[in-house]
């Protein structure tokens, strides 16, 4: 049976009990009122019968008409009351005594009023005596019977007031006890079930995914336990699946990491190993140009210059690649960096160009931040370098380096009034080796912004650019405020 049904039963039983008790009280009250009304009538009846007996005696002593009238009035009252007293119907002697008195008194009246009917005086006296004794006996019987009935009614009232109230308690107390017991056992069952549910849920939450709740009840809690078990089984399956997926991902990440490391090692080794032959090529090309420039025609000299320039750019590219590969691998020590000093060093690095172009540089006051110093320096170096480099010949270059403190990150920007970037290339500029201009127009390896992106990501940040062609660019990047090695 469901809990709702059980609760409905308890409510129903409570209502029935209360209604029953209420009706019981009403019934007792009505019974008492009825008994009291009967008692009052019996009392009046007894009084009237007593007076009837007295008036009979008065009349027998003195045959006065007043007594006769009073007697008739009293007899009428007695007869009327006897008809109203229900219990008299069960007492033959009461029902019979009243007409008996009446008939005997009629006989007395007849003897007194019509003495000619009873000519023998002695017989008349004897008859009067018997009739009077008859009345006395009946009056005494009526008084005795009504007195007894009066006492019985008083006893009935007492029973109604006391015993039936005890009955009321006998009914009320067991009813209340039964309801309490019913509620107690039901509550106990519910609480026990709830404890089982809570304990099951607690163990499940603690990681016991095989935990199931044994609650074989045909009610809402049993249903809830079943649903919990279904949910647990489903969750168990999902978690198991996720675990397998994670293991797979971890394995892939590990493989990727190894692959990256191998790649970086390869880049490092390759860069390092390439530098030496490249330097040799460039040195010999420069030597060739220096010693045999006069003996070679213009075309040969131009080719030699191309080769020297190519080897120089190749060196730059290799150096940049080497730097790129060191990020996160070699450059991985986080420490507090004074950005004011760092920026001063970077600007000093570009001092000749700045003076040459007449570039104005504005730097906001910078904080100390936790970062890999050389990496962060590379970021500013690349961004400021780009800002100086990508300028029109006619413009008056202006660079602004700013800072904003966010909740969890520092946000920096490097703003210029240079040539700007077309919208379609904004995301591409951070790709490795991506260049938007030819080496003759603006020199470079195409590694700078890719390096910046890698460093910013090493610092749990992001980098993006806002720019419009011909109106300059603003490069933003963020680094986390909570960085550990």
């Amino acid at each position, binding site marked *: 049976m469901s809990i709702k049904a059980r609760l409905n039963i308890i409510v129903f039983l409570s209502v029935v009990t209360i209604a029953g008790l209420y009706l019981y009280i009403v019934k007792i009250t009505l019974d008492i009122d009825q008994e009291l009304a009967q008692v009052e009538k019996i009392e009046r009846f007894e009084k009237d019968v007593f007076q009837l007996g007295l008036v009979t005696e008065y009349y027998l002593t003195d045959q006065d008409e007043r007594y006769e009238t009073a007697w008739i009035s009293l007899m009428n009252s007695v007869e009327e009351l006897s008809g109203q007293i229900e219990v008299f119907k069960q007492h033959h002697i009461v029902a019979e005594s009243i007409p008996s008195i009446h008939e*005997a008194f*009629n006989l007395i009246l007849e003897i007194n009023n019509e003495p000619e009917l009873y000519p023998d005086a002695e017989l008349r006296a004897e008859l009067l005596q*018997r009739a009077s004794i008859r009345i006395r006996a*009946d009056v*005494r019987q009526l008084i*005795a019977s009504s007195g007894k009935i009066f006492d019985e009614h008083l006893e009935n009232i007492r029973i109604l007031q006391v015993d039936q109230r005890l009955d009321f308690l006998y009914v009320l107390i067991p009813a209340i006890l039964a309801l309490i017991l019913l509620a107690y056992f039901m509550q106990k069952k519910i609480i026990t079930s709830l404890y089982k549910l809570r304990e099951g849920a607690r163990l499940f939450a603690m990681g016991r995914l095989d935990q199931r709740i044994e609650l074989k009840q045909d009610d809402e809690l049993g249903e809830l336990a079943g649903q919990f078990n279904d949910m647990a089984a489903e969750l168990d399956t999902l978690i198991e699946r996720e675990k397998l997926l994670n293991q797979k991902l971890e394995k892939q990440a590990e493989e990727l990491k190894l692959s990256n490391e191998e790649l970086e090692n390869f880049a490092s080794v390759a860069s390092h190993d390439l530098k030496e032959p490249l330097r040799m090529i460039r040195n010999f090309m420069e030597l060739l140009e220096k010693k045999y420039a006069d003996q070679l025609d213009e075309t040969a000299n131009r080719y030699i210059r191309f080769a020297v320039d190519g080897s120089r750019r190749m060196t730059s590219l290799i150096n940049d690649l080497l730097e790129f590969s060191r990020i996160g691998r070699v450059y991985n020590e986080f420490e507090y960096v004074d950005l004011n000093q760092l920026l001063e060093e970077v600007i000093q690095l570009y001092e000749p160009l700045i003076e040459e172009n007449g570039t104005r540089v504005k730097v906001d006051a910078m904080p100390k931040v936790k970062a890999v110093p050389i990496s962060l320096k590379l970021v500013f170096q690349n961004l400021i370098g780009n800002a100086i480099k990508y300028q029109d010949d006619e413009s008056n270059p202006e660079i602004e380096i700013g800072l904003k403190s966010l909740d969890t990150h520092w946000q920096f920007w490097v703003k210029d009034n240079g040539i700007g970037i077309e919208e379609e290339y904004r995301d591409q500029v951070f790709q490795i080796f991506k260049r938007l201009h030819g080496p003759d127009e603006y020199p470079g390896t195409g590694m700078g912004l890719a390096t910046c992106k890698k460093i910013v990501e090493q610092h749990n940040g992001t980098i993006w650019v806002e720019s419009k062609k011909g109106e300059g660019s603003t490069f933003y990047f963020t680094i986390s405020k909570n960085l550990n090695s």
Partner: protein
Amino acid sequence: MNKPANMNKLTAWTSSIFAFLVSISLFLSCTAENRNSAELIPVTVGITSFIGEAASFVAEEKGFFKENGLDVTLQINNAGSESVRQLISGTIDIAHVAETPAIFSTMDEKHISADRKDELQIVANMILANRIQKVIGRYDSGIEHPQDIRGKRVALAADTQLEYLLDSFLLEHQIGMEEIDTVHMNVHDQVAAFKNGEIDVAVVWEPHATNLLYYPEELAVELPTRLTYSTMWLVVVLDRYSEENPEVVSAYLRSLLKAQKYIRENPQWAVQLMSERTGVHLEVVTKAMRQLDYELSLSERTLSLLKEQKNWMIYNGYTASSDNL
């Protein structure tokens, strides 16, 4: 299938309580039976088959006498006067008798108790009834009114309350005893005599009165009287017996009291029993028993009525003294 431990405990408790209750019941029932069989006091009671005896039959049938420690033997006589004689002679211990034989035996040595050596003691009245004695005449004897009985054969059971009833009836209607032909006959014989026309008037008590009045109805007429006759049915013992066995008298009255309560609560059953015990038709007994109340008393009314009978005896010259009552 294993029961839970709590269930086993509950079962054990229930069994223990049940066993305990059964033991107590057996012990009590054995004790009660032993007491009943060992200590019952033999009592012989003289009664009649009069409907006023209902309480005696019920008490015997339902074992109320035994409950009160009495081994009662009911000695059924034709009339209360016979029972009084047996009481005086020592044949019985208690007599059930109407008021007239009781007064006769107390006041008049000539009638019942000429050789009595001990006073009678009335310990209780068992019924309250005002109209169970009747004077009944036959239509075909020309009787329709009280005055019509002059010169007719009127049956009378001597030494009974009916004697007083007839005397009052005649007095009320100004008829002299010498004006009727008195036929002495007990009430049982009156019924047959009335039906076969041997007598013209029967003076009887219930249930014979109802028997005559309703079977056949057209044959009989009840002759009216304004002097209602109150019947008593008294429990009478000898003084000596009462003094020596007060607890027996008390236990006897308690048994009757309980029987009367049982009659009030089970009237139909009591009627059935009375019909079986008296051999009177069930319908007759039903009508007869409706005319009286089974109520144990010893009231002023009883004394008044006894006094009335005493006066009657003096008036009729049955006794010279008025001091005996």
